[in-house]
């Protein structure tokens, strides 16, 4: 298997996904614009976080990358190979390089299977190894994720949420993937358990050099775990930068509002900072607003924002999709 260029393991190039909406016989066809031109490159051993609110397209992105749904346009490149149009057979061989961990460990594990079968199944599918060897590897994987090898004989209902998520991680690790897509991996878990799972993911990354595409709505968590952050709004990336630069300042008005809205577990900090309260909800992704998609909620919108849709452009060390980002004094403090 050839590697990607410059240590890139997974690349999305201008990904588009439109879902048709049911419409009447004489009405024009309409589409949900779930993804509209999303591009990024994920490097070996890196964590890229995708943040945004419901309807921003972050889960559709995960599905398109995994080819669990067919993208309408654009390309997915895994380890240098274009997998966008591969048939199911060829795809199966490549899936071992890219695994996914879902949000809800109560729904993602087959309740009838033993933990040993769940974790061993990817090995059975992708490698021809004797059963004894598979059992040995399963025991090793369970130990890697901090579970007793004796768990192999148990069933999901006997496990707590945190233990189940460890099983899901062990299953993803079973075939030594280069990339794991983590779709809200801790948001269904109790607060005291979340830290355990996050630490586990970090330790595994340090040891195995896996790249994570980390999808989450928990901004504090994302700042903690990721090297880079992409903020999405209505199917588009609106800002993408190093986590360090993002901590220093945010340039897109939506990123600013989003990060300012997240509650901080520190009464002093929350008293000091100014929250930007956006009006209204995220607009429907069916017929998204023309021009800049954020303009209907943007406190700094101007005439140009309705006429012209901004491109994702480089401003300093980052990419921003806003006409005015980077101009001195923008955005001006709200009164």
């Amino acid at each position, binding site marked *: 298997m050839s590697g990607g260029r410059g240590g890139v393991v997974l690349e999305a190039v201008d990904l588009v996904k439109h879902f048709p909406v049911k419409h009447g016989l004489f009405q024009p066809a309409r589409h949900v614009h779930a993804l509209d031109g999303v591009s990024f490159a994920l490097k070996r051993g890196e964590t890229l976080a995708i943040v945004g*609110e*419901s309807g921003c397209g972050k889960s559709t992105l995960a599905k398109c990358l995994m080819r669990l749904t067919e993208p309408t346009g654009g390309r997915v490149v895994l380890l240098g190979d274009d997998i966008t149009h591969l048939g199911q057979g060829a795809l199966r061989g490549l899936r071992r390089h890219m695994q996914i961990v879902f949000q809800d460990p109560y729904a993602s594990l087959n309740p009838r299977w033993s933990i040993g079968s769940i974790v061993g199944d990817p090995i059975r599918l992708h490698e021809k190894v004797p059963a004894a060897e598979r059992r040995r590897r399963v025991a090793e994987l369970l130990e890697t994720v901090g579970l007793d090898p004796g768990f192999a004989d148990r069933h999901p209902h006997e496990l*707590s*949420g*945190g*233990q189940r998520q460890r099983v899901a991680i062990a299953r993803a690790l079973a075939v030594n993937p280069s990339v794991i897509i983590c779709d809200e991996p801790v948001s269904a878990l*109790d*607060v*005291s*358990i*979340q*830290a*355990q799972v*996050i*630490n586990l993911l*970090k*330790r595994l990354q340090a040891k195995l050099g896996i790249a994570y595409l980390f999808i989450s*709505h*928990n*901004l*504090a*968590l994302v*700042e*903690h*775990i990721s090297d880079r952050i992409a903020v999405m709004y209505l199917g588009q990336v609106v800002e993408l930068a190093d*986590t360090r630069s993002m*901590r220093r300042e945010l340039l897109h008005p939506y990123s600013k*509002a*989003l990060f*300012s*809205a*997240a*509650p*901080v*577990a*520190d*009464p002093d*900090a*929350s008293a000091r900072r100014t*929250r930007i*309260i*956006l009006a*209204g*909800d*995220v607009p429907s992704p069916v017929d998204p607003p023309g021009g800049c998609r954020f303009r209907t909620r943007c406190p700094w919108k101007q005439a140009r924002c309705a006429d012209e849709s901004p491109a994702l452009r480089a401003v300093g060390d980052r990419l921003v999709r806003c006409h005015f980002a980077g101009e001195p004094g923008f955005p001006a403090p709200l009164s």
Partner: protein
Amino acid sequence: MSAVLEVADLAVRFRTTRGTVNAVDGLSFAIGEGETVALVGESGSGKSTAALALLRLIADPPGRIAAGRILFEGRDILALREEELREVRGGRIAMIFQDPMMALNPVYTIERQIGEVLALHAGMGREARAKEVVELLRLVGVPAPAERAKQYPHNLSGGMRQRVMIAMALACKPKLLIADEPTTALDVTVQAQVLDLIQSLKDRFGMAVLLITHDLGVVAETAHRVIVMYAGRKVEEGTTAQIFKDPRHPYTQGLLEAAKWEEVEGAMLREIPGAVPSPFDMPKGCAFSPRCGAALPRCRESVPPLVEVAPGRPVACFVAQERAS
């Protein structure tokens, strides 16, 4: 500050095929007028059960309020007759839930649902009700309130539904609002709007709020006082500043450490090992002792009582009590 609500020694039990579960045990607290008190805990801590018990909404069977006293404006809730209780519910005490879709009736218009509250508790006529509903929707920031009033819950977004539920809760200007995870199902920008709304309405009507949540960020931003629950018991109480700056119970300390994502960039988070115990298999002694790094032999023998380690700071932990004395 005079107390609106006083709860003493509340215990709620559930009978199941696997035995009796003490969902809430020996819970005491008070809420002052206009005060926001947060009940914090993980799943299984008993926080939602306690909230339901305040309005006697525990399904019996399998549940039962086994002991305790609930005084609201001086009246004993547990001694009220059904019709008296109905006056309190939705009138003097209102409740909002995490999922507004579950709490709203899908086949009735918004106007009819909010109107029902007004008819029951305020005895308003049809026209007065229609006017008041539009006024309430405007108050909670629903755009185009007159049109929205004629619509059904499915026509509204999650944030709008939560606003409708708040409008319904406010219809009778309650003295106490019980909010059970009111923003957990919402996006952060909408969560900020809803928390802001509750805050401004609280200031305007002087109502007290009991906020039930697992989100320490929401607590830090809204509550005056915090009660931390673990496995059905109160383990610590204090003002918001006290709890966040000087937590005394090892569980509270662990929770706060585990949530300090942004402060430990690159480094590992401090974990609380293990998981919340099963209610059918409670450890002997302190329920937190199997996960506690500071546990003493006596912690595994007997349940630590709540003792004030400082004025207004009850903590149920032998270690914290020893350190304070």
